[in-house]
C-alpha cells in the first residue's frame, strides 16, 4: 500500500523507517513508515490520539524514538540522522515547525518576529552585534507580502487576530527558509475566509518547500489535499490521493465516519 518513491526520480527529503515510540507502555507511534518527496505537500489526517503530534515531535527531535530511523536527506546528498540532532539545531538543518496554537512573540512587532526568525547565525555573540542588512530587510518584506501582513508590520504580534497570528507563524517559518515545513492544524480556530486564504498560502508554497500539514478539518483538507496519509493508532492506515483515501471503507470507519457521526 505504501509507496516508497524511487530516490532517483523523485528525490526524497525525509524518510521515517519503522519508527516506534511508547510512553509508559502506550505505543503512540507503532512501526511507522513515512516518505516525503522534495517539494511535496502532504496532508496527514487521523483521529485524536492517532499519534500526529508525536510524529511531529519525532521529526523535530523533540522526542527520541525507541526504535527505527528518521533520516533527513540534504540537498548535497548527505543524510542526517534526526534522532541524533539537538532540538535547536533542527531548524538550522532546514526543518521548521508551526505549532498547533499560534506561538508568536506577543510583545514584539510583526517585523521583529520575522527578523528573529531569519536564517543566519544563532550564537550569543552574533545576536549581540547583529546589524540588519539590506538583504535581511528584503527577505522580511518578501515574507510579509507572502503572508499578507505588510500593513501590520509595525503592530505588536499580540494584537493580531487569531488567523493573522497563524499566518505570522507560517511567515516565521518561511523566514527560516526551511526545506521541510511541518504545519500543525493551521486552520484551527479560523473563519471560513481565513481558512480559504490559509489554503491558498500553503498551496503557493508547494514546490518551493516540502510541507507536512496536519489537519482535522476535512473541508480544509479537501482544499489543499494532494497526497494524504491517514494515521491510526500510531500507524499509517492508508496513503494516497485524497479522493482515493476518503472513499476507503477503513478510513471512513476510523475517522471520517466517526466524524460524521459526531456531527
Amino acid at each position: 500500500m505504501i509507496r516508497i518513491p524511487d530516490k532517483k526520480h523523485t528525490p526524497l527529503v525525509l524518510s521515517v523507517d519503522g519508527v516506534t515510540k511508547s510512553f509508559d507502555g502506550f505505543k503512540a507511534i507503532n512501526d511507522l513508515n513515512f516518505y516525503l518527496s522534495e517539494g511535496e505537500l502532504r496532508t496527514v489526517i487521523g483521529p485524536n490520539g492517532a499519534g500526529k503530534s508525536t510524529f511531529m515531535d519525532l521529526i523535530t527531535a523533540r522526542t527520541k524514538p525507541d526504535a527505527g530511523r528518521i533520516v533527513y536527506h540534504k540537498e548535497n546528498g548527505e543524510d542526517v540522522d534526526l534522532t541524533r540532532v539537538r532540538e535547536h539545531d533542527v531548524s538550522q538543518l532546514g526543518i521548521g515547525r508551526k505549532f498547533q496554537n499560534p506561538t508568536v512573540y506577543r510583545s514584539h512587532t510583526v517585523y521583529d518576529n520575522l527578523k528573529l526568525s531569519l536564517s543566519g547565525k544563532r550564537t550569543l555573540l552574533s545576536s549581540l552585534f547583529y546589524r540588519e542588512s539590506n538583504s535581511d530587510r528584503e527577505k522580511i518584506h518578501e515574507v510579509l507580502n507572502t503572508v499578507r501582513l505588510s500593513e501590520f508590520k509595525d503592530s505588536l504580534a499580540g494584537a493580531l487576530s487569531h488567523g493573522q497570528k497563524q499566518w505570522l507563524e507560517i511567515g516565521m517559518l518561511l523566514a527560516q527558509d526551511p526545506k521541510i515545513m511541518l504545519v500543525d492544524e493551521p486552520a484551527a480556530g479560523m473563519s471560513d475566509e481565513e481558512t480559504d486564504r490559509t489554503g491558498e498560502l500553503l498551496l503557493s508554497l508547494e514546490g518551493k518547500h516540502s510541507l507536512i500539514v496536519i489537519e482535522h478539518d476535512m473541508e480544509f483538507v479537501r482544499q489543499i489535499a494532494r497526497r494524504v496519509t491517514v494515521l491510526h493508532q500510531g500507524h499509517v492506515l492508508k496513503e494516497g490521493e485524497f479522493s482515493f483515501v476518503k472513499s476507503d471503507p477503513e478510513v471512513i470507519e476510523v475517522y471520517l465516519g466517526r466524524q460524521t457521526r459526531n456531527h
Partner: protein
Amino acid sequence: MNIFDSKLEFRGFIGAVIVLILVIPLLNAFGSEGSLFHVSAFELSLWGKYITYAVLAMSLNILWGYTGLLCLCQSLFFALGAYAFGMYLMLHVGVDSVYNTSLPDFMDFQGYTELPFYWAPFESISFTVVAVFLIPGFVAFIFGYLAFSSRIKGVYFSILTQALTYALMLLFFKNNLELFGRSFILFGGNNGLTDFKEIMGADVNAASTQRWLFISSSLLMLGVYLLIAWLITTKFGKIQQAIRDSENRVRFSGYSTTSYKMLIFVGSAMIAGLAGALYVPQVGGINANEMTPAKSLDVVVWVALGGRGTKFGPILGAIVVSIIKSYTTRAYPDSWLIILGLIFVLVVLFMPNGLVGLPKQLKPWIDRIKNRGSKVVEATSPSAP
C-alpha cells in the same frame, strides 16, 4: 545607534550623572552643616545603600522583567558579592589588642592561628575585585546549567532558586563546616562580617572614603543602566523577550535557549554581586540574614512596584520601597511586613505596569475628566443668548 528612547530619557540620564557624581558628593564635602545644601554622612551612606539596592533590582529585572525568569535568590548573589568583599575588609582590620593577631576576631575565638587557605587570597584587593562577581557568577553558572539543561521553568525554577538561597543561608549561619572528618571555619556565623577598618589603606568610615563609595555605586548603577538600555536594542535583547513570550518558538527558530538563559542568569548574578560588594563597606557589615528567602522576595516587590520590564522602574521601586521601609520600621516597627505585603498585593491587582506605567494607565481617566469638562462648556454655550 541610539540606546535612549527619548530626549527626555537622555536628559534625565545626564542629569542623574551630574547629580550623583558631582552635586551630591560636593554638597557632602563642602556644604555647611545644618544648611539646606548639606548632605550629611548619614544621608550619603543611606543613599549609597539605596543605589546598591537599585542595582540589585535592575539585575533581577534583566532576569524577570526581560526574560521571564522569576529568580527568588537574587539577594543570594548580592550577599555572595558582599561576603567576598567583606572577607577582604575582614583581613584588613589590623592587629587587635586582645589576641595580638591580624586574624578576624571570630577566628581568634576559635583558636585559629593562621588563615585557612580559602580565606588567604582575599587579602589581595585585585583578587577580591574579581571574586565579587566571579563567585556569584560561578554559583549561577552551576545552578543555571543544572536547571536550564533539564528544562526547569516557571514556578519550578522559582522554587528551586528559593531553596538554593535557603540552603546557602543555613550554611552561612554556621560557624564551622564538618567535612571529611575535618572542621572548616566559615564566614563568621550569626554575626557575619563586621567592624571593618580599612579599605585599600584608607579608613572605611572616613568621609572621603564614603564619598568614593557613593560615587562608585552611582557609576555602577549608571553603567548597568546603559548596559541594559543597549542590550534591549540588540537582537540579543529581543531574543530575551521572545524567550519570555514563547520559549518553544525560540528554540524551534534555532536558538539554543539554554545558552541564552545561562548567559543572562550568570550576567545578572554578577551584577548583583558587584552591588553587594559596594553595599558592604557603606553599611558596615554583612551577615547571613541577607540570604533569607524574604530578602530576595523584597527585590521582587521592588521590581514589581517600579515596573518590571522597564529600564527605570526597578530603580524607582527599590528606592521608594526602601524609603517607606526606613520610615515605617522606625514609626511602626511591627507592621512593616504587613505594609510590604499590602504594597505587593495592590501592585499585582491594580498596577500591572508598576509606578512607571502609572501615567499611561491613568491617562484615559484623566482624558475622560478633561473631556467631561469641555463637554459641559459646549453644552451650555449654545443655549446662552
